[in-house]
């Protein structure tokens, strides 16, 4: 019988999990090729090297194997301070007290998963095109992945979407974005410059002779790349490329023609200055206009 949430040890709160997710940069997804007995050690080494989120993905394991493996990998991830997620199965996430679950487009609907998991668990969702990224905005998800950036044996038959889609997802998303798919050293920085908050790595880390050393190298590459600026626009998180001006933001939001007013950190920006104002990390913007109505509507 699976333990209910009330019976299990007190879990981390959703707020602390989300705060850690926001700061995470390197995300490991396990593969099927790594032998089961090696996997917990791989997780430990990768986390020591700088991996901050671990997703257990074993498409070929039986439910019993997966349950065992999840407990062991969870402990290793937590020892190193990493978040631990399981792939596909919300029930497994509850059973092993994982920090959350990652869902594909063909898995359980995020809304249904949220009902099962409650508000404290993280839910991630794979997206592969603009429509999916747009649809994810109104789903109860805490991050999205964007990929595969390159063709990869992990996802045979899925066409690569390239870094252009990572940028598109970064513009649309209100939650952190993980670029994933055939990414390794030399490409992690480019993914960040394209708008990714996190870089997801499968094969490069799982097949590395020294996963810890590679994780450290990837983290350095990621930290050295200019990250997109994160803003709060009308109460929701948005990302813009470094150096983006207020005018460029309005254009990217399709606001151009409408008579909108931008308030930045409590100060109204004059129309004439919009092209000169460069947006900064954590800026709070309100974009308002005149609408029909008064008090009673």
């Amino acid at each position: 019988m699976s333990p209910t949430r009330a019976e299990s040890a007190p879990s981390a709160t959703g707020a602390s999990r989300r705060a850690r997710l926001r700061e995470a940069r390197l995300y490991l997804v396990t593969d099927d090729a790594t032998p089961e007995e090696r996997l917990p050690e791989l997780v430990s080494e990768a986390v020591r090297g700088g991996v901050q989120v671990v997703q257990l993905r074993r498409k070929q394991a039986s439910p019993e194997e997966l349950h065992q493996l999840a407990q062991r990998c969870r402990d290793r991830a937590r020892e190193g301070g990493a978040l631990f997620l399981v792939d596909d199965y919300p029930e497994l996430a509850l059973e092993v007290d994982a920090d959350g679950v990652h869902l594909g487009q063909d898995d359980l609907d995020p809304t249904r998963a949220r009902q099962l998991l409650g508000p404290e668990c993280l839910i991630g969702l794979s997206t592969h095109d603009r429509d999916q990224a747009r649809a994810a905005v109104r789903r109860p998800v805490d991050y999205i992945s964007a990929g595969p950036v390159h063709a990869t044996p992990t996802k045979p038959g899925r066409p690569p979407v390239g870094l252009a889609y990572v940028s598109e997802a970064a513009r649309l998303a209100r939650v952190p974005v993980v670029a994933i798919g055939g990414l390794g050293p030399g490409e992690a920085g480019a993914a960040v410059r394209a708008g990714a908050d996190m870089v997801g790595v499968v094969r490069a880390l799982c097949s590395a002779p020294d996963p810890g050393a590679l994780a450290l190298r990837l983290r350095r590459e990621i930290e050295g790349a200019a990250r997109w600026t994160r803003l709060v626009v009308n109460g929701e998180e948005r990302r813009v490329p470094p150096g983006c001006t207020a005018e460029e933001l309005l254009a990217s939001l399709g606001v151009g023609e409408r008579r909108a007013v931008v308030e930045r950190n409590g100060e109204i920006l004059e129309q004439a200055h919009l092209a000169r104002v460069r947006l900064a990390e954590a800026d709070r913007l309100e974009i308002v206009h005149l609408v029909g109505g008064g008090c009673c509507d």
Partner: protein
Amino acid sequence: MTEDRLQFGGRSFASRLIHGTGKFPSPEVLAAAIAASGAELITLAVRRLHLDGDRRSELAAVDLSAHTLLPNTAGASSAEESVRLARLGRAAGLSDLVKVEVVGDPETLLPDPQETLRATAQLVAEGFTVLPYSSDDVALCLALARAGAAAVMPGAAPIGSTLGVLNPHNLRAIIARCPVPVIVDAGLGAPSEAARVMEWGAAGVLVNTAIAHARDPEAMARAFAAAVSAGRAAHLAGPAADAPAGGYGASSPTVGMPTPAGAGS
């Protein structure tokens, strides 16, 4: 004889009917009603832009450039929020006109007198032409006028209620006592009620729900315009049954009051 116009804050308008823009069934109906009313001033709220998709604006069919925009601060529940919305409205409407609305009670939407007064004083200091929505309180309207309001907008009844003039004595006293134009705002339900307050000497009326929720808003807008004109004409003609202006005699004598302590001699 010079043309009879609604005047405040250095502006003047031929129409004494101010048109609200909320709760209309469609942008087209709103535009038709505004056109039928002949209103020059229309009130608008300040809200976040919808950044997803292309939701059609309820103002889409209205030619805003043909009107004087009166941004309101609906949604504010403090002076600070009202001032912030006023500044945003000025930037969006390119006008220094603002209708201050500070709700003090979310159930009845009746205004908060202290916050309304504070917001009015602050916005006057910032150079706005301020029209505060207030309760039908004589002393409050006088205080708002002293604070620099260009006109005062006492409600006839709670916003959206269409209950008509709940306290005719108060409204008449406000009209008699206020040194600035009195525009009756909120709660009017029928053109006859608009005509009535105009006969008393109100400088104008603001109507929204009574038009928006009429079976035929366009026709009702026209009816309100006619009522406002008729009431104004009646006021200028001097109604025979006009009540004596002079207030109500106090029941206690006002002479022989002791001098306040510390006032000297």
